[in-house]
């Protein structure tokens, strides 16, 4: 379970996918591939934005853009789940927009890290189609929205340890789009553990690119 502390209380999110929540956590020896056991309690997520909150119940989420109507956490969650479900029938190509990518981008630009957190839960519970998850991870890297950048990067850094090769690839590309050397420590660990040669080469390609930028 993940615990999120906020002014409105503490919310817990089922955690079905082992991944390091923060660099600090990964530095403490937690191994997403079944290495040293981490304490079986809760992780307090760091604050990545001025306010990290997970409103309880149906408390309305204020949109960052006041012209956009507010929506409740349940509505946001339902909207994103429906968006991802419908996307199963779309065909995705690199560099091409889709109904899914346009709506995902619009939702994240409206609701910022809250939308990212909802997507994270959908991704980590393994309820989504692999192809949709991979596409979502690419767009987490492509979206130009500063306020949600850290939240998006954190999801991508976790997703490169997914059990799905497609998701690991989507996350690797997402991190390459973000172009942030912070991801290097995660990418290196993922590449060391990667069994698929084509994917390991892709990870090494991204690592080489990010190291060049240091």
């Amino acid at each position, binding site marked *: 379970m993940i615990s999120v502390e906020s002014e409105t209380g503490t919310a817990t999110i089922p955690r079905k996918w082992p991944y390091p929540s923060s660099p600090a956590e990964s530095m403490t020896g937690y191994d997403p591939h079944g290495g040293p056991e981490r304490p079986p309690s809760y992780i307090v997520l760091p604050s990545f934005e001025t306010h990290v909150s997970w409103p309880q119940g149906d408390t309305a989420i204020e949109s960052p853009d006041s012209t956009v109507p507010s929506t409740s956490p349940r509505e946001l969650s339902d909207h994103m789940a429906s968006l991802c479900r419908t996307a199963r029938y779309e*065909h*995705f*190509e*690199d*560099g*091409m*927009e889709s109904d899914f990518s346009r709506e995902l981008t619009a939702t994240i630009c409206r609701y910022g890290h809250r939308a990212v957190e909802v997507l994270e839960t959908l991704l980590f519970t393994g309820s989504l189609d692999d192809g949709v998850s*991979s596409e979502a991870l*690419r767009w987490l890297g*492509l979206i130009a929205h500063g306020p949600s950048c850290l939240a998006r990067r954190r999801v991508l850094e976790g997703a490169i340890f997914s059990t799905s*090769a*497609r998701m690991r*690839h*989507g996350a690797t*590309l997402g991190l*390459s*789009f973000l*172009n942030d050397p912070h991801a290097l420590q995660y990418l290196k660990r993922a590449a060391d553990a990667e069994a*698929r040669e*084509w*994917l390991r080469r*892709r990870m090494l*390609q*991204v690592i080489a*690119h990010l190291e060049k930028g240091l």
Partner: protein
Amino acid sequence: MALALRAIRLERWDEEELLGAAWLPEQDIVADVLSDLHTRGGRLSVWHIEPDRSNLERVLVAFATGRDVLANVDYILFDESLLTTVGVQLEQENGESADETANREWHYNLTGVSGHRLAALARRMLERGEKGGLLKQELELRLARACRANEVDIAKLNRKMKQAVQGMLSSH
């Protein structure tokens, strides 16, 4: 030996997924990969790559100019002689990228592509092809260079690509 290039979504060409299914008939391939090989009227678009690969980067940039946004571009490269083994032919037809030279000189269609031949081609591409790709930032550099060299007609890019290219040209 001349080569043919087809842009792909790399993760769809995972050998383990495509050839490893227990139910798969011998010499066949899981059909998911065919979504990277759209045909129209039995024709499949490919790019011709010179034996020394001197036009590889230019073709990748040309291909990318037809997209909505700048991202990675991944491809599979295979020997053109493989085409005769599956019974399809190469026919030159101008491409639709923003690079007129690439369109005219290196864009081809495979013709006579039936369902059976397409599956056979996909299997051989997977077995004998060479996969590769450029990351978004690598592509940006090459695209900026191509624009400066007037290889790419910026006016032919869509709005978002045009904005990205104009931003790149002012920063690179």
